[in-house]
């Protein structure tokens, strides 16, 4: 028997990864197939009619958006579903009884969810290869937005999973907040194709900056400056991380 200071955190991270990996058909493969269907339909309908940023084919434009959308949605789904299932079935006590700090708790749930998001995102990118000629102009930018976007949604998932007392409330959070914000964030269109009013409204949606910044990593072009996107996304991440950590430190709904 050997004791290690970080073993608690590592074990929770391992357990959370193993949890989604054991049902990878549902947690990784299914969202990849969904994204592929979007790609098939939209590319078939629009590819010959629409170009973006001058000469970029619509399908090529769509791929980074789909990758990021899938990544974000799955990062959220992982932490939120894991927590609410554990709360409702009662097995959350196995995580609450050991000597894990709230920071370790946060880090393990968020990193595991980021990994699921990144797996799904990579999967979507992989299956897109036969459909589109795509190069990554600035991989550092793409990676930065993928990491920060998944961390934001994973944190939101922790908040939703802790806050919700039943699956219905979590579904509300997902369907009335996460889904509209992702779908209306420029996944399927360039902001410049919208009327001015909706362009202004889109600037209030942090998901737009995540996707626009990620897309910059592929084309070296985006609707707004990647630095602006980086600033907005960084502030969002810091605020959400602080809020989640404060909830966990207080024991909100977990250690009542």
């Amino acid at each position, binding site marked *: *028997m050997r004791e290690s200071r970080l*073993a608690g955190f*590592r074990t929770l991270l391992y357990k959370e990864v193993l949890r989604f990996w054991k*049902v990878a058909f549902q947690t990784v493969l299914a969202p990849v197939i969904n994204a592929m269907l979007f790609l098939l339909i939209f590319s078939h309908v629009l590819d010959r009619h629409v170009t973006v940023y001058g000469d970029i084919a619509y399908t090529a434009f769509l791929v980074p958006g789909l990758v990021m959308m899938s990544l974000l949605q799955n990062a959220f789904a992982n932490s939120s579903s894991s927590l609410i299932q554990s709360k409702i079935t*009662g097995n959350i*006590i*196995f995580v*609450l009884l*050991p*000597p894990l700090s709230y920071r370790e708790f946060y880090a393990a749930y968020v990193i595991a969810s980021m990994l699921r998001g990144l797996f799904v995102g990579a999967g979507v990118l992989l299956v897109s290869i036969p459909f589109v000629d795509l190069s990554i102009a600035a991989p550092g930018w793409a990676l930065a937005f993928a990491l920060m976007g998944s961390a934001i949604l994973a944190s939101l998932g922790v908040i939703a999973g802790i806050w919700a007392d039943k699956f219905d409330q979590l579904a509300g959070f997902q369907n009335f907040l996460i889904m509209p914000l992702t779908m209306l964030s420029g996944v399927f269109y360039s902001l410049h194709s919208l009327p001015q009013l909706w362009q202004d409204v889109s600037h209030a949606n942090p998901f737009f900056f995540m996707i626009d910044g990620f897309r910059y990593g592929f084309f070296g072009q985006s609707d707004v400056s990647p630095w602006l996107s980086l600033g907005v996304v960084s502030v969002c991440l810091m605020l959400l991380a602080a809020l989640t950590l404060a909830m966990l430190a207080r024991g909100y709904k977990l250690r009542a």
Partner: protein
Amino acid sequence: MSLPAIRIVSATKRYGSVQALAGVDLEVDRGEFFGLLGPNGAGKTTLISALSGLVRADSGTLEVMGHDVVSDYRNARRKLGVVPQELVFDPFFTVRELLRIQSGYFGIRHNDDWIDEILASLDLTAKAGANMRMLSGGMKRRVLVAQALVHRPPVIVLDEPTAGVDVELRQGLWQFIRKLNRDGHTIVLTTHYLEEAEALCGRIAMLKAGRVVALDTTANLLRRFAAHSLRVRLERPEIAGRLGATLAEGGWAEFALDTYDEVEPTLARLREAGGRIVEMQLGEADLERVFVEVMHDA
């Protein structure tokens, strides 16, 4: 002198309008087999939850082996193993995976030797590779015990561990828990089966409405409240009533006695009063009667 295994000073906890703990003071010595009894809603589970960090007490001090459960929670939780009341499990994993994961949470890696020992002791070796969903209720209960033991805690709290468990498993479980106690583990037990508490616990605390209303050794509690009883069924039970007996259904009357020496004088008084005995029983005091009296008086 060594610190107690558990020390609770003025612990309070309120849920809305319900005062779950109303200033609990309690000490459990190392190596004790301690019973925590009380009716539903008395505060037993809240007290255990506060001790294990599952809820936060509003005020007071709670320590496990000298470690404060809030300011020194890491050490306090390392010293404590809790078997929860609810039959909870994680459906994604096998028994062995769960025990390895639980060991890891406590910072312990490469714990398979001890895990194998626990599995063997709880007769779970054959189920080590089975998914939790495939186990019977009794098996799941044993896994809960195993999970509480993976980090070799010196203090083990069992919150109604035999609720809904068949006789064979119950006996096996108590045999194992007794062995742990003999090996030096402090055991704290809550149960509604009072005969279990009477047989196992050296000391007992009774809770009512969030307060400790009785705290003594089991032997003293049994002595303090009506050590023996004489039950008689009379043709005219009201005669016994006039002599201070408690009347029950079916013409039965019960005299509380401190010693068996009081049997003969009591029967003599009954005879003198004209009482004709139809049936008679002598009874030992049991914890159930003590419990009823304590709860009635508190």
